[in-house]
């Protein structure tokens, strides 16, 4: 149990995908102008990430790993399909996003309208693919990958909501002409990222 709590805290704060690895920066910068859009994107990422990381984990262990195909017979026992992981992961993510979109539309119409265009866009968000690739690189088990998927999605959501709050306040400040907009946003994210580095002092 303690192991999973450690993993969760690490995924949310220490290894925050947005502020420590800079994944999903495009949508992170583009969708953080307003609070509502930031919350919408954050929720969608938590949702899809919690679903796709464990799903990819199951597929990786059942199809791709060396010897994973031995259930088909002894001749398949030595096949190593790990080089196919990029294609499989991105296909799973695209399909999962589509299914989640239809399910939310059917059962939670209010959430669907608030997420709007962000759900389909998530298929090409590097946070989602990055989460699956980190899962593969670190060789997480299935329970670990559920915790990691939720934690990393939640960390991204916290980071984007925090940035949106700062940017709403920033519109009242007097920023130099050339730095307005994108420039100052980069510098703010840099400062936030430095602040998040404090967490690396935590011993887990």
């Amino acid at each position, binding site marked *: 149990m303690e192991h999973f709590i450690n993993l969760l805290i690490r995924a949310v704060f220490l290894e925050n995908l947005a502020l420590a690895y800079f994944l999903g920066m495009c949508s992170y910068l583009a969708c953080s102008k307003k609070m509502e859009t930031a919350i919408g994107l954050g929720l969608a990422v938590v949702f899809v990430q919690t679903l796709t990381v464990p799903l990819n984990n199951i597929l990786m262990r059942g199809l791709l790993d060396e010897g994973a195909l031995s259930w088909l017979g002894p001749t398949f026992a030595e096949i190593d399909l790990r080089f196919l992981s*990029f294609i499989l992961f991105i296909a799973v993510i695209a399909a999962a996003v589509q299914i989640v979109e239809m399910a939310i539309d059917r059962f939670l119409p209010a959430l669907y309208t608030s997420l709007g265009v962000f759900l389909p866009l998530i298929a*090409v968000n590097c946070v989602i*693919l990055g989460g699956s*690739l980190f899962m593969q690189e670190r060789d997480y088990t299935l329970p670990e990958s559920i915790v990691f998927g939720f934690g990393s999605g939640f960390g991204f959501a916290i980071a984007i909501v925090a940035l949106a709050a700062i940017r709403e306040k920033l519109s009242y400040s007097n920023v130099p002409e050339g730095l307005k907009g*994108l420039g100052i946003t980069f510098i703010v994210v*840099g400062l936030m990222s430095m602040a998040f580095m404090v967490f690396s002092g935590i011993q887990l």
Partner: protein
Amino acid sequence: MSTVIGSGRPARFTFGPNERATLTDPLIANNPITVQMLGVCSALAITTRVDNAVVMSVGVILVAMIASLAVSLIRERIPTAIRIIVQLAIIASLVTVFDQVLEATFYEISLELSVFVGLIITNCMVLGRAEGYAMRHPPFPAVLDALGNALGYALILIVVAATRELLGVGKLLGFQVLPLTRDGGWYEPNGLMVLPPSALFVIGLLIWAMRTWWPSLVEKD
């Protein structure tokens, strides 16, 4: 009897002012990172050293050009509803090939780049050019556009990596350029430049510098 496949017009491989503009516009005036805000993630994460940035740039240039070529060649046969998945499948296959070649030839660099080679798949710059340009243009301009954008991306990547490596450890491409005080020289290395946040500061300041030089890039509102 021979027929011309496709539109019936003769294929144009001329390199006039239009083609030159397609190629050079994305370098500064419409740079993918500092103006279009595409492909920022990898630009931030792997720019601690110039050699990593060069390898990453080569990968993106190759993948973007071949992906745009392939998408443009089959653009009239891709059903609109599934075009993103088709584009992703093409890009993912190319990235897989590049990743395998990299692992076989430069194993150490491939370890250092870790998941970021795989993330070329979701590099919005590659997908953005395939979706935004190659889907509507013939192969030759599509390849030029991909090359121009990838070069603009590579330019920023290498400038940022050079700044960080020079100020952070006083080296360029692994050679000691500024002698460190530790070894009896005069340069005191700036530790912040090695850490991830400095990439954001460098790009932020770079955007500021570019907008001061070319005031047309300043955002309205």
